[in-house]
């Protein structure tokens, strides 16, 4: 059996939950039904009384998970450094906010915490003793336009190495592996007035992996792009294709993956994110952890069609099963 487990982030169902069409228990029931038993939560999204979570609430969640044979995988933290107008939280306040989250992780029985990428490595260093004591891994989310090799990310890894701790590292968001431009992005920009030939130009430039600033310049200045076209070109800043070969080099520093996606085709393939390259790398290096669905397609289609997050997540998991099985088989042959 594979060491790679499957799960979902509640983030994936934000459309239905926002509109009151799904409860968290509906999400758990659905996730369980597709074998995605690992549950990632955003307490600030999914726990209305946050940050005041009493023991009864903790028990309620544990019972709900048990009812569906599910378990928690990851806690997505936020850090409101701009709580007060015109000033930033002091370092001590930042550490205290993170400690609060670590304590809540521990109470909930969660061993991975997603740390927002803007949190300073020296702040995290001060939190390591709490993370160790509470046995929670703090993983800085590697989110586009950053990538696994960005010097900002390496600073956190350097801190972890220097301290020799196993409780600080990274948490990659698969959005960094955007091999092809998402059709959902293109379609929305076309609905907003992007001319098809300009949209095609942008898609072609991305396909060729041309430095995004060149494309933005071409569209904005040389082609006299309209507002939708320029906005579409600017999405390229956040659409890097990082090298999947690096996964093995960073595997020791991550234990959980946010499996970002924007839309799946009917035959259960992802037209944008390079899971076909990523999953074999994960299998090859023997990585253990959870691929946690992070569907972010709702905002790209909600203007024109109903959002069906369940169907999208279901398709992604069909793909995961297929790709994991294929990679495992390949591995046994080699």
């Amino acid at each position, binding site marked *: 059996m594979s060491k790679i487990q499957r799960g979902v982030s509640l983030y994936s169902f934000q459309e239905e939950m*926002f509109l009151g069409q799904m409860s968290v228990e509906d999400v758990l029931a659905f996730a369980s039904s597709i074998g995605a038993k690992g549950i990632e939560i955003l307490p*600030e*999204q999914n726990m209305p009384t946050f940050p005041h979570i009493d023991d009864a609430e903790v028990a309620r969640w544990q019972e709900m998970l048990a009812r569906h044979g599910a378990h928690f995988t990851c806690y997505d933290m936020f850090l409101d450094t701009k709580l007060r*107008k015109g000033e930033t939280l002091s370092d001590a306040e930042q550490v205290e906010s993170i400690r609060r989250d670590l304590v809540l992780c521990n109470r909930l029985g969660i061993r991975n915490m997603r740390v927002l990428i803007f949190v300073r490595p020296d702040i995290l260093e001060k939190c390591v003793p709490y993370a160790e004591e509470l046995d929670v891994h703090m993983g800085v989310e590697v989110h586009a336009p950053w990538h696994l090799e960005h010097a900002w990310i390496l600073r956190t890894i350097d801190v972890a190495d220097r301290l020799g701790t196993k409780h600080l590292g990274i948490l990659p968001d698969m959005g960094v592996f955007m091999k092809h431009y998402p059709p959902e992005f293109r379609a929305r920009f076309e609905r907003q007035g992007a001319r098809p030939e300009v949209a095609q130009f942008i898609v072609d430039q991305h396909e060729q992996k041309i430095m995004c600033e060149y494309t933005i310049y071409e569209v904005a200045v040389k082609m006299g792009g309209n507002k939708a076209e320029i906005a579409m070109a600017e999405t390229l800043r956040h659409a890097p294709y990082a090298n999947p070969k690096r996964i093995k080099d960073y595997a020791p520093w991550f234990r959980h993956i946010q499996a970002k996606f924007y839309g799946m085709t009917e035959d259960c393939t992802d037209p944008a994110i390079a899971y076909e390259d990523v999953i074999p790398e994960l299998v090859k290096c023997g990585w253990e952890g959870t691929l946690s669905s992070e569907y972010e397609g709702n*905002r790209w289609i909600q203007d024109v069609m109903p959002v069906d997050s369940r169907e999208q997540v279901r398709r992604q998991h069909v793909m995961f099963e297929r790709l994991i099985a294929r990679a495992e088989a390949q591995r046994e042959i080699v």
Partner: protein
Amino acid sequence: MFDKYLIDAASLRNTGPADAPTGFAFEARLGYYRGLGLSMIEKLDVSIDGNALPRAAVRFDEGGGPLTLEEMEAAYERRWPFGAPATILVDHAGGFPAGEHELALLQQLRVSYLPFPSINSDAKRVSLSA
């Protein structure tokens, strides 16, 4: 990410005496994928047919009692939860004008991990069903 859902058009109502309304109110949701502390809500701009109403005319109540936007800036212990309706109260002599008008709401949020303010806005054609 939820701009089109911010204003609950059906919730629009006048406030004050029924025969001499002093304002109107409606339910709104926060256009963000998590809840947020009230002190980080920098603006709740309400406008009718493109005319902005004064900031001082707007109050907010997520359930903890009405606050002016000024008071909200220091409401460090209160939050607007994800997907939850809150009441936007607007002082406006005579209430919401008769007939159909465009009601717009712009939310400006101070999101710590973004260098610029996060802005969500919605505008809907609404009328008081009397």
